[in-house]
């Protein structure tokens, strides 16, 4: 089972355990399960976004519109609940439909017009932020007795910790994502497209239809992240979640998914997002470091993981080439370095 596909995930788990172990060693507070369950609650929206992003990146694409989508859905939700007085459950369903619709539209443009996902979702980033501004310019509180009941749901765990509603919702969405990726035909198609689009199409994978579904799924997940974020902050704010797309991509990469597509695990996104959360928590616990260290630390971690992936791919390629041909040609990377 120990092959190059699993190695990055194992590295992620090692980093996660090391960081958490350091926290436990250094600070007494880390020993409570409270820190861990707080990580789940505080990073729920990021994890949900990263699950959707996993599918996109495994298929070899990228979705830059997720941060704006979170803000847009949050503002839409606030408008539907506080402005129009719609029950939160219906409002959430409407918001999810809207998010999935916009994701589908981006997918159609990417698949059927053959335009790079990067630039299409960049336009989406503009569009959703603009739509959020259009609905509202200010932060709007979301008040509803139903949401208060949701916020009161709390499953206590030993060690002062406990699961909130959004943490549980996140876990449900994560498990659904994992099952879809590994146990459905759609999930297999996603991996096939990420591995090689041409071969996938020759093998009978409906490439265009799957691409549309992938971006629809990413839209759905970022919409769900928007709802989670709105419940978490209790408001809708058009300037919310700026730059979350980068955090989500970082989470997916740190989680061991290859950016070239075809290789990756949805659960890696969960670990990647938690690692970012731990770094943030450690910096808060330290107290002397400024919050911008988080950004630098995540940037460095991102770099290390990308380099590690490159190294693994490089060496496995060399190894397999050696077993096929007696004398492998010089790999260009080593030549001009």
């Amino acid at each position: 089972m120990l092959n190059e596909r699993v190695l990055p995930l194992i590295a992620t788990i090692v980093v996660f355990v090391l960081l958490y172990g350091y926290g436990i060693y250094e600070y007494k507070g880390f020993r409570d399960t409270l820190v861990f369950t707080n990580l789940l609650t505080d990073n729920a929206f990021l994890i949900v976004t990263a699950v959707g992003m996993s599918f996109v990146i495994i298929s070899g694409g990228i979705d830059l519109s997720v941060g704006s989508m979170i803000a847009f859905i949050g503002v839409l939700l606030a408008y539907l609940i506080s402005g129009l007085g719609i029950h939160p459950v219906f409002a959430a369903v409407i918001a999810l439909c809207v998010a999935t619709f916009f994701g589908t539209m981006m997918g159609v443009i990417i698949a059927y017009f053959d335009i790079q996902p990067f630039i299409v979702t960049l336009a989406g980033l503009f569009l959703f932020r603009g739509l959020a501004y259009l609905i509202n310019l200010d932060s709007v509180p979301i008040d509803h007795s139903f949401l208060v009941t949701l916020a009161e749901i709390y499953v206590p765990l030993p060690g002062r910790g406990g699961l909130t509603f959004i943490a549980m919702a996140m876990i449900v969405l994560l498990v659904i994502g994992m099952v879809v990726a590994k146990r459905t035909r759609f999930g297999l198609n996603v991996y096939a497209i990420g591995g090689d689009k041409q071969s996938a199409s020759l093998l009978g994978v409906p490439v265009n239809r799957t691409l549309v579904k992938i971006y629809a799924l990413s839209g759905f997940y970022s919409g769900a992240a928007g709802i989670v974020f709105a419940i978490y902050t209790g408001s809708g704010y058009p300037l919310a979640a700026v730059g979350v797309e980068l955090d989500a991509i970082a989470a997916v990469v740190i989680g061991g998914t290859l950016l070239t597509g075809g290789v990756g695990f949805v659960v890696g996104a969960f670990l990647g997002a938690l690692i970012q959360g731990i770094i943030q928590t450690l910096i808060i616990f330290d107290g002397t470091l400024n919050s911008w260290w988080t950004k630098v630390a995540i940037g460095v971690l991102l770099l290390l993981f990308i380099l590690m992936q490159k190294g693994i791919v490089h060496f496995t390629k060399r190894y397999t080439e050696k077993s096929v041909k007696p004398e492998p040609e010089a790999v260009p990377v080593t030549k001009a370095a």
Partner: protein
Amino acid sequence: MQFVSKPRPDAKTLAPVISLFVLIMGTSLVTPGFLDISIVDGHIYGSLVDIVHRATPMLLVAVGMAIVIGTKGIDLSVGSIIAISGAVTAVLTVNTEWLPFVVMGCALLAGMACGLWNGLLVTVFGIQPIVATLILMVAGRGIAQMITGGQIVTFHSEFFNAIGNGFFAGLPLRVVLAIVIVVATALVLRKTALGLFFESVGANAESSRLMGIDSRMLILIAYVFSGFCSAMAGIILAADIRGADANNAGLWLELDAILAVVIAGASLSGGRIYLGLTVIGALIIQTLTTAILTSGLPAQYNLIVKASIVLLVLLIQSSRTRDFVKSRLMLARRSSHVE
């Protein structure tokens, strides 16, 4: 081949120019006095001058971006480089007695070092450009905040005031500066073979290498140049507000810059550098922004309009759309023949 000095007047190159013209005319109908240019104290004033003045930083970034995109890359870190060079300018001006020229040189070097870093990640480690520059985009603002100590550092310097808001021969100094950089770049690209080399690397890096072009070095140069342009934009932006704001300086400028290059008609899959049209693209975006603001529409329409335009341009550029239209035309022609 496309010469910057003599654009071939075909539909593709004319489209951005005509769009800019229509846009300016349209805006002048809605906003009276839009075309007025007056000379006060020997300085030129007017809405059009204001557009050029405001467009300068984005234009510079777009020129660097055009070359990077020409080599089949992308530079997402320009906003962070702007923040870093602005921070270096502010901190050195406040904390040292160095000459403004030296300070400016340091800020430019900082930007070029960032570009070198991006270039090394792309060439030596073979990381995809989106991801390689993403790292600096994430970490860069953190680095800028480290330089400024997390504060908005304000500074006062005659030299930088002149760069931000001064005039030279009646024109805003920063516009003159941008013109010098753009013209110099155009000359170097088109009067030497360098421009062709960049485009050849963008079209096919491997075959260029086999033809004896040092692809890696050229890609490296492209990113360093983009870093230089962004650093220049950062200096201008910092000089404009007389301070360095590590959080907001150049925020989302990368999107505008990429948009300008796309409007110019350059394919994101590399191989084409349209410097003159990129400048026009940058002016189109700034005119749009100004037009939306002066026409009384809410500012929030700005993002939606930009997004719609980029999607429209992309859909028109898409080969699939062209094939579809062509096949439809063929069908129409055939059916008319039958009748």
